[in-house]
Structures are given as structure tokens and as C-alpha cells.
């Protein structure tokens, strides 16, 4: 913080300034700890409840009397839970791979090619990005259920991802703008075709952007509730974790401990992935908000 200018050693003014900055440090960090408690305590309470006995979970106790790690075994033994886990991985894994592969060339064209309609395309990409999925759900459902006969599966959610995702295109485009055009032009002068330029020159530099897009997409699929509700609700073997979790509370009526254990198991992968890829993720959030 600000230290008042003091010509001689420890003048009263300097002492006052030092004390002020110490008080400031204490104030800021107390506030920080209070905020941290607000953000972390819900996780802690969920975790503690997930380890309580059935009866204790219905009391007001905050910490378990005895630790019931077998609650987690019980969750995995719940019919369907492993299948939902597998489905979530399939949806999120395949969806992410498809979105990344199909969005990169589009983002590259929008960032580095000059062509008529580029600005319009970008505006349309942003419009698609902001479109609530519910707006087009009636015709989309009729298309997948009646024409394609794919309701009761996750394919109506996975297949569209082979055709680019507006958010991924936009985020990647913002990232590619930060790569200087000179690199692209140098590769072109060296006789590289556009595809080679993209793969050999641009992609290695765009790795952080691609990582961010992949993470966002993985989380989107993992968290998606509306999509599985529309297309998979009729067939429990096609449910994902996010969709199945809700029915878990229904099946285990008052067993808050098991429900909270299942909740932990749905949160855990996302949080683990975040710890390994924190930097790319935060960079991605900043890129979407602040111009490139």
C-alpha cells in the first residue's frame, strides 16, 4: 500500500504508514477468508453429510459421528449409476473431440481469411452462441425423433457437434486473432497450403486456446441437463450422470447421505480436471470477456 515519503529512518509518519498498511493487510485478508468460507463451506458440508449414517443425515449435526465410507460403495451399486457414468464420458469425450476438430477450421477462416460475408458470419456465430437451446427444441426434437428415429439415445446431442459449436468457434477465433498474421504469411510465402499452414504453424501456437475450448466443451457436455432430458429421458440406459443424479434423490427418498455422496461423485471429475488445467481454463474465461 501507499507509504508516505519519510526522509529520516523511522519517523512517526513512516511508523503510522507501516501500521496503516499492516491494518490494511489484515482487513483485506480477513475479508478474503470470509469470502473463502462462503465459497468452500457448501462443499465441506456436502462432503461431511455424504459420510454420515442414514439416520444422522436427517439431523442437524454438521459432522458425522461415525464415518461411513461405504456410502460411496452403495452409490456405485445403485442400478444404473455406472451406466450413467459411462454415458457421460461418451457424450463428453466424443462431443469434445468432434467440436474441437470441426470448429478449428471455421475459427481459422474467420480469424485469418479475408472474404465477403466474414463479418456477417461472425455476427451469426454470436447469435447462435446466445440462442437459448429451448428456442429451436420443438423442430429439433421432431427431426431427431421422427425423421432419424434416434430418441432414447444421446446421438441427437453428439452428432451436431461434428458441425462446429458457436461458442467454441468464437473463443478459438478470439485466440487466433492474438497470433500475428506474419506467421501465417511467412508460411504461405514458403509455399505452404492453407491446411498445412493451419496444422504445422498455427495449431502449435494455438494449443492454450484449444485446451480452453476442449475444457469448456467437456464441462458443457458433462453438466448438460436439458439435452439428455429431451432426448434420453424415456430410456434410463441412455441417461447421463447430470440427468440421473436428479432421479437419485427420488429413488433414495430421504437418504440425503447417499444423495450427497452421488453429488460428490458428479462434481469430482470436473474439479479434478480443473486442477490439472487451471491455467488454460482461466485464460479461456478471460478471452471470452475481454477483446483479444
Amino acid at each position, binding site marked *: 500500500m501507499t507509504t508516505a515519503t519519510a526522509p529520516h529512518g523511522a519517523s512517526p509518519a513512516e511508523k503510522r504508514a507501516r501500521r496503516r498498511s499492516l491494518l490494511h493487510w489484515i482487513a*483485506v485478508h480477513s475479508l478474503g477468508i470470509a469470502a473463502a468460507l462462503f*465459497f468452500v463451506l457448501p462443499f465441506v458440508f456436502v462432503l461431511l453429510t455424504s459420510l454420515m449414517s442414514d439416520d444422522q443425515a436427517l439431523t442437524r449435526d454438521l459432522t458425522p459421528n461415525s464415518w461411513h465410507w461405504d456410502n460411496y460403495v452403495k452409490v456405485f451399486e445403485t442400478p444404473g449409476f455406472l451406466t450413467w457414468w459411462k454415458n457421460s464420458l461418451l457424450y463428453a469425450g466424443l462431443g469434445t473431440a468432434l467440436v474441437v476438430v*470441426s470448429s478449428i477450421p471455421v475459427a481459422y477462416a474467420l480469424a485469418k*481469411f479475408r472474404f465477403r460475408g466474414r463479418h456477417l458470419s461472425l455476427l451469426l456465430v454470436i447469435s447462435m452462441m446466445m440462442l437459448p437451446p429451448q428456442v429451436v*427444441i*420443438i423442430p429439433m426434437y421432431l427431426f431427431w425423433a421422427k425423421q432419424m428415429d434416434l430418441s432414447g439415445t444421446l446421438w441427437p446431442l453428439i452428432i451436431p457437434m461434428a458441425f462446429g459449436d458457436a461458442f467454441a468457434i468464437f473463443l478459438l477465433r478470439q485466440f487466433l486473432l492474438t497470433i500475428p498474421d506474419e506467421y501465417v504469411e511467412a508460411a504461405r510465402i514458403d509455399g505452404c497450403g492453407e491446411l498445412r499452414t493451419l496444422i504445422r504453424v498455427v495449431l502449435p501456437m494455438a494449443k492454450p486456446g484449444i485446451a480452453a475450448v476442449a475444457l469448456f466443451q467437456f464441462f458443457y457436455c458433462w453438466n448438460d441437463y436439458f439435452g439428455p432430458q429431451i432426448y434420453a429421458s424415456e430410456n434410463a440406459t441412455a441417461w447421463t*450422470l447430470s440427468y440421473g443424479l436428479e432421479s437419485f434423490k427420488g429413488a433414495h427418498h430421504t437418504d440425503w447421505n447417499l444423495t*450427497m455422496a452421488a*453429488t460428490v461423485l458428479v462434481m469430482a471429475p*470436473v474439479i479434478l480436471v480443473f486442477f490439472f488445467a487451471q491455467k488454460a481454463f482461466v485464460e479461456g474465461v478471460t478471452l471470452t470477456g475481454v477483446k483479444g
Partner: protein
Amino acid sequence: MSTDTLPAKEAAAPAASSPGGRNTLRSKRRRNALRTLAFMSPWLIGFGVFFAYPLVSTLYFSFMKYDGLNPPTWRGVDNWTYVFGEFPQFWPALRNTLWLAVVMVACRVLFGLGVGMLITKIKTAAGVFRTLFYLPYLAPPVAATLAFVFLLNPGTGPVNALLEAVGLPAPSWFNDASWSKPALTVLAVWGVGDLMVIFMAALLDVPKEQYEAAELDGASAWQRFRYVTLPNISPIVLFAVVTGIIGAMQYYTQPIVAAKVASGKMGGSGEVFVPGYPDESTLTLPQLVYSLGFSQFNYGAACVVALVLFAFSMAFTALLMRRRGGLIGSGD
């Protein structure tokens, strides 16, 4: 913008080059157009099949009577008058959406800004604080909602236990029509990590010299915030408000899961789940599309609500794109 340069080239080309040069220029241009088309093709197909076609189709169905079994028949504006005039859940849902767009967005932006400012001031273990503040944003919405329905459970939840312990009133949160939206707001504020990161980046971008100059002029902390910080970050605040409103329009998963879990009616095995529990207080527009379309099989009316949702979203998106240097930013 690129389109400005194209006609100029076109005009210059015939005068400057021989017929042969003109051909190579034209073929080069054609090659470039094909190349662009090839790179854009995944999105062009996606745009047509998953955006343009269903949007037109939604408009078409909004004038039809259709239940998914019998062939659609023309109904004129009946679906529209039904939704705006007779359908009892439309106006409550719109009011709720408005409430969320004002109160929830305001709380998130103010809190996000506060936490963002706090994190730029924290000097010790800043990385740990940042991670802890950010983590709730990542919690899957269904899991986070389940957790909060439990935490705010009126009978046995730890939050009310703590509130009562310190002598504060303990509301019924998700089970009380006047507290359910505030409960959802607490949940939304908990996941404020995305805004925190955006505000943090914006705050660190404010030129240091401006603060120093303000301090030399004897500006107080509030004055520095009001006349230095705020003008510098106002585009980001606006961005957060507008994207927050668009998010409020789409608010779906949290209220529907909260209503299901808090009411205990999951909609399975004979129980009929009525969205909006308690007393339509958590009903939002996207939920109406779902319940009209997939519980009542009134596709026509569902499409009307979908188009209302579309109009709102696009109006705010246009606001976002009109701002110079806002979302689209550099490169143009």
C-alpha cells in the same frame, strides 16, 4: 472490414492487367472462395440444419395446431392469443424471468466485482484464494442445486441451523414462494467465479499512473474507484450485465431441479411434477417451452413461447454487438 477492399480490387483489375492476367486473377479468386467455403463448411451445414431450418420451422409451427401424432393443421394466431391471453403460466414465468434479470444479475455483478477487487488486493496466498473463489463456478448445475436444496433445507439444513444459532430468522428457502428466488440467487452468487476472473483481468488493466495521479490530487478511496476504476472497467461491467440478462432468459436447470427436489415430486412413477414449485415462483420461460411441448404436446403454443424467448435473447445480443470494442473487438 474486408468487404470494403474487394470492389476496389475488382475495378482496378481489368484496367491494369492483360486478358491473361485477368484470368489468373479470377481463378485465384475462385480458388480462394472455394478454400474459404471448405474451411467454413462444418459451420455452414450446422448453421443451416441446427439454426436456420429449426428457427423457420418454429415460426411455422407457431401458427399450427400440432400434437406430434395428427398432421399439423392451420390455426392462425390462435396459439399466440392463447399464450398471451389464456395460458395461466405465461405471465408469472415472464415476471420471474424479469425478477431474475434484475435482482439476480445485479447481485452477481456487484458480488463478482467485489470479489474481483478483493482478489487484486490479496497479496498472501493469492493463488489459493483465487482457486477457492473460482471453484463453485465449476460445480455441475444439477449437483450444485441438489447441494443447495440440502444446505438450505428448512428442517435439517446446516444453513438454517447456523442462522438460528446466531439468532437470525430461518426462512424456508426453496419451500417458500417468497424465498425460492432469493435462494436461487444465493446459488447463482456462489458460482460467481466467471465474473470474478473477467473483472480481475479488467482491474489489472487499469493504468497505474491514473491511480497515482488521483492520489497526488488527494482523491479518497471512493473517489479513486468512482473516477478512475469505474470508467476504465465500465465496458466489462456492461458486458457482464448484458450476458447476465441473456443467461437469465435461459435459466432452466437450476429452478427445475430445485423445484423437483424441494417438492419431492420427481415426475417419475405416476407422480405429476408441476414446474414452478412453490406456487409458480421458480417458473421461467424455457420451462414453459418444455412443459407445453413435452408434457402437454401443444407444440404450437410451445413454439410461441420459444419465439418470445428468441426475441428477448436477440434484442440483448444486438445490444452486445453494437458496443464498439465490446464482444467482437479487434480484427475488424
